[in-house]
């Protein structure tokens, strides 16, 4: 055989196998959903729980045959370690190499603000289920947020607590190194002004601080009715236990934001967490059928109770699946438009997006208080 003929035969063989390969790929009928969450490092408790919720939802969808007309859900997960540069890289990888249809994530507001522009450049819808800082959906029309922001939940907590406990004087304790907490300070100030509550003292600290004896001793003698707190569970639990140790008056009511909304707060602070008030879009004891079945399935798979982050992950995946199913075709623009107009009822009650792609309302948000070691409706 001449060399040209050999070459031609080889090339034909290559072409045929490529064709077969491509057609076999097309026949797989799956949709890739990117997941970008914090799975390692100090913030992994938030992202890890969210990821568990997303996984549970994806499994449930695939067990029922996948998304109608689209295929099975394949989750492609990237860990950011809480680092916004890694979040940006994760987005780039998922979009350019994995060709995902949608990205669920990131976890933290700082990551969302850094990586959002990447989704915008490549026209891939991004749904964050945790980030709560101001202005995230404003990055561009492809960025959506399902988590209720502090600015929707905190005023609720303050108003309900003020009504129940007749709060007149309060102090604000907030972590000044986290944009969420700095924002909650401003929101507390506003909400207090609206309720006619006098803010007698403002104390700040770093998220990683462990000693609050100075700040707590200072407010002990100021005759306050409440302390409005902007901190994450670790820091919050330290504040609560030290307040109890220092003998702060027991009638002081602690109000927390999204950061306090975690069973970790109770397990760390123990009896000092009694009476803490937090508003939440969801809590584990919600009695509707959707939630009961979600909690049961979560417990069976993970041997622990879900928290709000897990519920938000689950809800987020369900929302994305509904958008993919309802979209007239699988182009990014169509998926984005379907997502923007979506109306579903799920773990958080009736859900839809407002014009600015934040949740349209507070849904079934409930104000909870720690009683007997668990969060109960106040």
């Amino acid at each position, binding site marked *: 055989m001449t060399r040209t003929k050999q070459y031609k035969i080889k090339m034909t063989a290559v072409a045929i196998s490529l064709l077969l390969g491509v057609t076999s790929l097309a026949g797989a009928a799956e949709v890739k959903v990117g997941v970008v969450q914090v799975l*390692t*490092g*100090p913030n*992994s*408790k938030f992202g*890890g729980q969210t990821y568990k919720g997303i996984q549970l939802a994806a499994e449930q969808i695939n067990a029922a045959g996948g998304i109608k007309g689209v295929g099975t859900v394949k989750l492609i997960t990237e860990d950011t370690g809480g680092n916004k540069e890694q979040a940006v890289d994760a987005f780039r990888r998922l979009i350019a190499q994995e060709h995902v249809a949608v990205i669920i994530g990131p976890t933290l507001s700082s990551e969302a603000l850094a990586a959002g522009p990447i989704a915008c450049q490549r026209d891939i819808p991004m749904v964050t289920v945790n980030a709560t800082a101001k202005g995230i959906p404003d990055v561009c029309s492809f960025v959506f947020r399902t988590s209720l922001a502090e600015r929707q939940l905190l005023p609720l907590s303050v108003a309900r607590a003020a009504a129940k406990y007749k709060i007149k004087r309060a102090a604000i304790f907030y972590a*000044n190194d986290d944009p969420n907490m700095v924002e909650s300070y401003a929101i507390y100030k506003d909400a207090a002004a609206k309720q006619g509550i006098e803010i007698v003292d403002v*104390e*700040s*600290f*770093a998220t*990683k*601080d*462990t*000693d609050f*004896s*100075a*700040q707590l*001793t*200072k407010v*002990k*003698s100021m005759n306050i009715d409440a302390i409005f707190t902007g901190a994450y569970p*670790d820091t919050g*639990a*330290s504040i609560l*236990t030290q307040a109890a*140790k*220092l*003998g702060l008056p027991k009638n002081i009511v602690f109000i927390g934001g999204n950061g306090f909304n975690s069973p*970790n707060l109770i*397990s*760390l602070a*123990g009896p000092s967490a009694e009476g803490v008030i937090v508003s939440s879009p969801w809590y584990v004891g919600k009695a509707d059928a959707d939630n009961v079945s979600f909690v049961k399935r979560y417990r069976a798979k993970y041997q622990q109770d879900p928290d709000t982050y897990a519920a938000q992950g689950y809800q987020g995946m369900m929302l994305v699946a509904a958008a993919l199913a309802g979209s007239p075709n699988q182009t990014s623009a169509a998926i984005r438009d379907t997502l923007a107009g979506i109306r579903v009822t799920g773990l958080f009650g009736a859900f839809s997006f407002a014009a600015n792609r934040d949740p349209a309302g507070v849904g079934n948000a409930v104000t909870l208080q720690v009683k007997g070691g668990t969060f109960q409706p106040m």
Partner: protein
Amino acid sequence: MFAQQLVNGVVLGAIYSLFSLGFTIIFGVLHVINLMYGVFFALGAYVSLWAAQSLGLGLIASIALSAVVTGVAAIGLDALIVTPLRRRKERYLASLLATMGMSLFLYALLTRFFGAEPMRYPSGFSSETVLSFGSVSISVLQITIVGIVLVVVAALFWFLKKTRWGVAVRGVGDHETAALLVGLSPFRTTALVSFIGGSLAAVAGTLIGLNFNAVQPFMGETMMLQGFAVVVIGGLGSMPGALAAGMLLGIIEILTTAYISSAYRDAVTFALLLATLWVLPQGLLPTSTARRV
């Protein structure tokens, strides 16, 4: 209120000193920046937590077990990472990078085994009694911490000045080659210093973890910056220096928070550090050693 704030400051100061004692002895004697110290701190807390939960041991027994286990782990890890680098010319930089890398790996390992969630000691593990003297409250645990810091500083001071092993440690710290020439084994002395550093970290980790009742893999990291500042302000390798600097820092931080603003807390620490480097670069209570000219 001032009295209570002063008490708060002394307790915080004792905590900073306790954390820094092991750090300063490693830094001052072995002349390496061992960033794995933060890991030993957390490891010590986890071992005593495990001892309390699984073996049901009391406070003293758990601390003792944790000190020994962490000390041995420190010997192993130091021999693996630090000792080979001490012979190199760039010992400070190389040890900084290598121990930083190893500490990241170890943190991931700790997170893998224990999870990132903070854990609590079982209730009743340490006395929960809070004593009140008028308007000042202090818990028995906090008094214990202050007491232990003073005892440890005195013990280490005596060890380094009065015992043969202590003198050997100082000798190796001063000039390794000369120590070799007079027949001191640098390997054994290094191992001894590693053990002491590791056990001190473990004691600190247990007590501090107990005081704030949260044991999580990164608990050492939050203390590292303050610990570093204390070590430099007090003078490298100086026990009384670490004590003085720790107390000073703790008191100043608390009083700043109480009377100026809590926003300036960290700023104060680093302003003090800068001031020391500017005015007294050898630290507050430097170890008096002959310096090569």
